[in-house]
């Protein structure tokens, strides 16, 4: 089975700080990581290959040359191969044009199934997975928390919705986006790290994937960032001073009752 996992290199937003003077994002010194949701997708791809006892897991990303390090990390945890979509033409794309770029690469790769994290932690859109699927005219399953069965042409998956789980039979090829519950990603092995170091990364530009530069990147994006600003900062509030836990409880319950929502 030919499995492709789409990943994104993101700034580790947990280390992102807000400059107290300018009230803006401080990116300097922020580490780049594999989007955490994509790490589950990589692990799931590797598990499918291990379960079937055959197949190949290729990781695919679009990004600057530095994104290569994310691909190598994926190889260290079990991916076989890696492709980087890298070109000035792809830069600045919104979810519409990014999903088209990835879809064009996938057309060339002819996978049996595509896995990705449910969303990236920087943009938080959750739109690229379904977007790829639609550009390819494939079916999709989002928020997958378990792959019950998978074989060529068919998968049975559980999808996490707000009030429960929907069990879906999906015709393959399809795009499956996964949530954290699906697995526990492994740590890189020494052998994996060695392989990652030596691995050849395939790099494709717009010509390699037969893509009209007018349709991708910033040019091909229907949406544009108008401006960015910092959210109003939330200061610490009032500390309840009380002699005992029951006094504190009485004060706080009084405040809750005053809100008139309970």
């Amino acid at each position: 089975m030919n499995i492709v996992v789409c990943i994104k290199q993101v700034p580790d937003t947990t280390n992102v700080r807000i400059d107290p003077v300018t009230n803006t994002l401080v990116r300097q010194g922020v580490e780049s990581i594999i989007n955490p949701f994509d790490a589950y997708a990589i692990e799931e791809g590797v598990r499918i290959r291990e379960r079937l006892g055959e197949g190949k897991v290729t990781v695919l990303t679009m990004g600057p040359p530095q994104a290569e390090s994310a691909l190598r990390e994926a190889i260290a945890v079990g991916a076989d191969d890696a492709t980087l979509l890298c070109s000035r033409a792809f830069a600045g794309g919104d979810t519409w044009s990014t999903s088209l770029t990835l879809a064009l690469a996938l057309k060339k790769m002819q996978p049996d199934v595509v896995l990705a994290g449910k969303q990236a932690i920087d943009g938080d859109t959750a739109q690229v997975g379904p977007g790829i699927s639609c550009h390819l005219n494939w079916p999709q399953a989002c928020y997958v928390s378990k792959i019950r069965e998978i074989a060529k042409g068919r998968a049975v998956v559980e999808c996490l919705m707000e009030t429960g789980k929907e069990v879906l039979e999906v015709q393959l090829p399809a795009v499956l986006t996964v949530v954290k519950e699906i697995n526990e990603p492994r740590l890189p092995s020494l052998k994996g790290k060695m392989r990652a170091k030596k691995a050849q990364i395939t790099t494709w530009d717009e010509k390699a994937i037969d893509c009209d530069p007018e349709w991708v990147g910033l040019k091909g994006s229907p949406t544009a960032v108008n401006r960015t600003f910092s959210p109003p900062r939330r200061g610490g509030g009032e500390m309840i001073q009380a002699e005992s836990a029951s006094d504190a409880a009485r004060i706080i319950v009084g405040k809750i009752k005053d809100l008139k929502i309970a």
Partner: protein
Amino acid sequence: MAENALIIDAGKCVGCQACVKVCPFGALSMADKKAVVGDACTFCGNCVPSCKFNAITMTKAEKKAAVNIDEWKGVWVFGEQIDGVIQGVVYELIGKGRELADKRGVPLTVVVPGHGMDEQCADLLQYPVDAVIQIDEPDLKHYASEPYARVIADLIAKRKPEIFLAGATAIGRSFLARVAVEVHTGLTADCTGLDITDEGLLLQTRPAFGGNIMASILCAKHRPQMSTVRHKVMQAAKKDGGRNGKVEKIGADGKLLASRTKRLEWLPEMTETVNLVDADIIVSGGRGLGKPEGFGMIEQLAKLLGGAVGSSRAAVDAGWKPYSHQVGQTGKTVQPKLYIACGISGAVQHLVGMSSSDRIIAINKDPEAPIFSVATWGIVGDVYEVVPAMIRELGGEA
């Protein structure tokens, strides 16, 4: 046609790096003590006012409209239903949609794909909407991404609304991206603010980078302007007798209904308390509880308050609570009226999932815990003393 360009005047640049610091995309860097622009630039313009030396100028490309924008009129709202129940977020979309439609002087329409929804659609007319389009097909009874996307995209292409809003729910977020691809327009995810300019441009505000930054997004040259909207942020519309509108009941072309996914089973989440994202009040427990049994009192407090139970990642990873309760970066983003954090230290990953709650109560024995930095009210103390005391105060037995 002017191209997008961000130009740094090397003569004026003093190398202070102020612009590098404010760029949310990491697109500016220093070379030879002067700022330079990299490929990651999205021409958001954030850096322009940051330069005290007026060294940065930006021009934006005049993009030709992809469609004749004047042909697109009206505001549409996606009437999401699950098991025949119109979802709460729909009434919030009606509230915001009404405001936008009035500013534009255009009608507000709710579109409801489903089956046997006559009563519910008639009821929607009691709200401030001008019309309801009911797409009635047995194949649309339950959500399925392909038919839902095709049917909605087909209707959009035929009727040309200028704005289309849906809830940022599991359903809304998974099929709207397909609609956007099919009709070739922009889609902005998980908006927390919507406004409109006099020219009819929808200003879509959304959090990014884990809520560390807000971005305002425009879709200038394509229609419709589409957004998914976060639940519990907009004011829900109330029944006001309606606008004497009508329900238009239509079917869908059979070829639009084909689906390559099949729903085999539905496994409802077994829970005694309400759904996390719908809740007005959330009581959450974390590592500070020390043991899974600690969630007993958390559940009891939630029940007394009519709220839902949340959990930090630490408590989920320890196996004390299922993942569906996890609040935070790799879990759910919630925005209740009141969030009560019990024994949660407040790692950034947790804070990004709950810090936009209206009010936050933090109970923790460590006075230095970061959770207190976002709390409206903080109590330094043992959760096993404070929470049972709160339960007793609310008339429960602890």
